[in-house]
């Protein structure tokens, strides 16, 4: 289309050339060169009328088809009105109609010309004025049409019914001075449009300026100089008027043609753009949509299948609320109402939707309102992005953060992070709380942390951290905090440091746990334990002392018993010895001393001392404090028992029935077992002594064994033990005897000795006429 464009730089010269040519032409035209006729005028004005009509109609079509600049409205209306006035002008000057008008032709012709010229020049001048000062205000089309209609009708009425003054004045120069009025209006429009410089880019304005130049010069240099009707100036002014119309027509055609070309080009571009848009829509993972003013989908990109599971065909005709989850509907509806009322863009609206197969997807909706020229909302265009994964992650993250916070609150676990590179330290709220430091007054710092530590622990904590930076190993440490009021808290620290590949520390992350309560409990428990151990040991010692005491008491009792046994054993030898002494003394007194008798006495004394000596041996063992195991047997120990006790029992007329059937030789604490047997036999003896003299008193001793045990039964016929106390007889200090005879320790000690030294047991039960004690000693005893 470049060939149609007159070069912008040369346009000025075209203006200048045209103007110069026309002005020069006016000087060469002589008034008397020719004289045309009414017919010529009618023909030429008919052409002008048609031209004006074409220009007017084209201009208006152009204006309405593209909503082009208001200039085309003015031009269109101006030329339509002009064409109407031209038609009138043509009619009144024609030889057929002039007779119907009141004014003579030499008045009617110039004035009707004048009316058309004024109307056109006024319209063009106003169009410039409007474009310059009211560019942003759309002129009401109605006003333009009403003005044009009134103006043309008024002119018509004036010319039709009012007699007009003469139009030509006899003077040397200007015969028609009224023609300067449209000339000045043309000049105003010409200067205005020229200065506006629209002509530099717009072809139409370029042609318009040419047309204005022609009009101005034709009015100024031709018509004003016309002497008569139909003289050369008069004719040329008419011809130039045609030219000016043709120029405007040319501009219009050029403009329309350009527009046509542009449209074609735009269409191509649009097609390309559409194609690109399709590609974009198809390559986007987002769901791209368009809804109308009722919110109904009018377009849905194919990707909607991937997001909602519905095909575009299924989506179109539905609204977004057919997919939004019930839980979200109310909130989203409220938000939409605000957006729609204010015709706002939809920005990052998060909403949950149900897919076709019932799953939930979270969409991020963005959209722009579609607004028509009248400002009415036509709908929205936008995209839905599937952010389910990131939303779910966000939810998980926020839940995890919440849980972490809760965990911190519950456990009083503080978290800190030291960025070693930037030397910044972060403390969680729990740490400030734990250290009792006001978050607003004191910034977290390593020094502040050390300050809160108990002075005695500072070096240790510092060393632990420094050490972990060197060894690159995590550490955990328990230390004290010293509060400002002197309280002590216990905290447990754990720390882990990240290092770069060169081993430089990057940042340390750690936790602080307040374990003061735990530590206090620990201390209390330790204290309790200590006390408890002490108490237990004290009690044990007491118990041991008591046992020892009881054993000693028991041993003393046994010893006492033995003393009495010794007394019995020694009574006979002592009596014998003293009687032998009597024999000697009697011989002396009778003077009958003889060697034979002395020999006899000496023999008896030796015999008796021997017996005494052997009796002492029997008892000696029992008084030895040393405890040791000796290879022996139960029956041997029983024999020993009767050696020391037999006389005592004989003395009290107690019959002993022995039935000893054990044979196992084993290592035994014989003295302890002897002690036990003496205790039991003494008990039986004491019971039997309480019986009537006539009753035969018997103690039966029986031993036997099986594979594991050696059993010893000691049974008397002393009447047995009352059922009410039979369970208590092994208790310490329990006795049925009066204070003289019993201490209540015999059976208790016997049982203790049997358990402690023989791992043995002792039980008692009543027989027909007495009590029977049964001792079971394991063969494999310790």
């Amino acid at each position, binding site marked *: 289309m470049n060939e149609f464009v007159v070069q912008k730089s040369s346009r000025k010269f075209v203006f200048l050339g045209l103007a110069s040519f026309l002005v020069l032409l006016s000087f060469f035209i002589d008034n008397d060169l020719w004289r045309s006729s009414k017919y010529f005028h009618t023909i030429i004005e008919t052409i002008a009328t048609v031209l004006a009509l074409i220009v007017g109609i084209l201009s208006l079509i152009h204006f309405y088809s593209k909503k082009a600049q208001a200039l085309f409205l003015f031009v269109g209306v101006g030329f339509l009105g002009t064409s109407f006035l031209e038609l009138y002008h043509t009619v009144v000057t024609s030889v057929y109609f002039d007779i119907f008008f009141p004014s003579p032709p030499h008045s009617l012709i110039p004035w009707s010309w004048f009316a058309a010229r004024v109307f056109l020049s006024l319209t063009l001048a106003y169009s410039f004025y409007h474009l310059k000062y009211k560019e942003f205000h759309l002129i009401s089309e109605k006003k333009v049409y009403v003005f044009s209609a009134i103006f043309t009708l008024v002119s018509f009425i004036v010319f039709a019914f009012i007699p007009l003054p003469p139009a030509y004045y006899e003077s040397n120069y200007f015969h028609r001075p009224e023609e300067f009025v449209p000339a000045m209006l043309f000049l105003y429009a010409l200067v205005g449009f020229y200065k506006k410089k629209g002509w530099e880019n717009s072809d139409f304005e370029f042609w318009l300026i040419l047309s204005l130049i022609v009009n101005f010069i034709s009015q100024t240099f031709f018509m004003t100089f016309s002497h008569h009707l139909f003289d050369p100036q008069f004719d040329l002014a008419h011809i130039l008027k045609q030219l000016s119309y043709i120029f405007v027509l040319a501009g219009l055609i050029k403009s329309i043609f350009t527009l046509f070309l542009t449209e074609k080009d735009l269409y191509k571009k649009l097609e390309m753009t559409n194609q690109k848009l399709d590609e974009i829509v198809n390559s986007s993972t987002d769901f791209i949509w368009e809804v109308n003013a009722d919110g109904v989908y009018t377009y849905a990109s194919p990707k909607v299948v991937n997001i909602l599971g519905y095909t575009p065909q299924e989506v179109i005709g539905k609204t977004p609320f057919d997919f939004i989850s019930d839980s979200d509907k109310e909130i989203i509806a409220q938000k939409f109402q605000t957006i729609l009322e204010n015709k706002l863009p939809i920005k990052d609206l998060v909403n949950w939707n149900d897919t076709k197969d019932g799953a939930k997807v979270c969409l991020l909706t963005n959209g722009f309102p579609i607004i028509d020229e009248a400002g009415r909302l036509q709908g929205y265009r936008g995209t839905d992005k599937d952010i389910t994964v990131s939303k779910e992650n966000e939810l998980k993250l926020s839940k995890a953060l919440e849980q972490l916070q809760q965990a911190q609150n519950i456990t009083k676990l503080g978290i800190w992070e030291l960025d070693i590179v930037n030397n910044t330290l972060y403390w969680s709220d729990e740490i400030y709380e734990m250290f009792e430091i006001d978050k607003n007054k004191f910034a977290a710092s390593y020094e502040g942390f050390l300050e809160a530590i108990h002075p005695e622990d500072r070096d240790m904590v510092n060393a632990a951290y420094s050490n972990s930076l060197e060894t690159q190993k995590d550490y955990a440490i328990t230390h004290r905090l010293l509060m400002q009021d002197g309280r002590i808290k216990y905290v447990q620290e754990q720390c882990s440091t990240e290092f770069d590949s060169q081993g430089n520390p990057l940042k340390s992350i750690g936790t602080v746990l307040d374990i003061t309560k735990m530590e206090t409990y620990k201390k209390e428990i330790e204290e309790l334990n200590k006390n408890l151990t002490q108490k237990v040991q004290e009690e044990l010692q007491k118990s041991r002392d008591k046992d020892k005491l009881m054993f000693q008491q028991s041993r003393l009792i046994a010893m006492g018993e033995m003393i009495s046994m010794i007394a019995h054993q020694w*009574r*006979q*030898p*002592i*009596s*014998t010895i*003293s*009687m*032998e*002494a*009597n*024999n000697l*003394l*009697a*011989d002396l*007194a*009778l*003077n*009958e001393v003889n060697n034979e*008798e002395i020999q*006899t006495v000496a023999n*008896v004394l030796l*015999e*008796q001392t021997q017996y005494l000596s052997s009796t002492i041996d029997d008892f000696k063992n029992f008084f030895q404090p040393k405890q040791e195991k000796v290879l022996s047997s139960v029956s041997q120990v029983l024999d020993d028992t009767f050696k020391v006790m037999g006389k005592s029992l*004989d*003395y009290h*007329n107690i019959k002993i029935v022995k039935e000893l059937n054990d044979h196992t030789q084993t290592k035994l604490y014989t003295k302890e077992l002897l002690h036990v047997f003496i205790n039991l036999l003494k008990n039986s003896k004491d019971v039997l002594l309480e019986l009537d003299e006539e009753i035969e008193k018997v103690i039966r001793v029986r031993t036997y064994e099986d594979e594991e045990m050696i059993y010893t039964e000691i049974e008397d016929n002393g009447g047995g033990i009352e059922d009410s106390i039979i369970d208590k007889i092994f208790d310490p200090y329990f006795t049925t005897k009066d204070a003289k005879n019993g201490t209540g320790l015999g059976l208790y000690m016997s049982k203790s000795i049997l358990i402690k030294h023989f791992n043995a047991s002792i039980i008692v039960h009543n027989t027909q006429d007495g009590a029977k004690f049964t001792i079971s000693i394991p063969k494999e005893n310790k």
Partner: protein
Amino acid sequence: MTDLVELRTKLKKYSVLFVDDEESIRFSTGRFLKKFFNSVDVADNGETGLQSYKNHTHDIVITDILMPKMNGDIMAKKITELNPDAFIVFVTASRDHEEYDGVAKSFKVTKPLSFEVVQEMIEKIAQMIE
């Protein structure tokens, strides 16, 4: 002190029964009594003592009390039943042993039998037997 030689002369015509369960005491005491009395019989318990008395009707019976089979006091009671005039001396370990009812002529001596005690016993027998 009474002259033991005198007492021996006086007592040499009487017979004695000594009952004790201890053999060595029987042997020692028997030899002592033999130095003063005409004849001395010994028995080791109440039963044998009673049997010996039945056979010989000794003038004097000297007996221990606590003995197996038959005590001294039971034996004494039975001897008195045979001979209400029987003369019985009890030798006892216990100092507070009571006198025996139903025995006309008796006394007791307490062990141990020192020389003084046996002297007194001989003297007392000599007095009481007349």
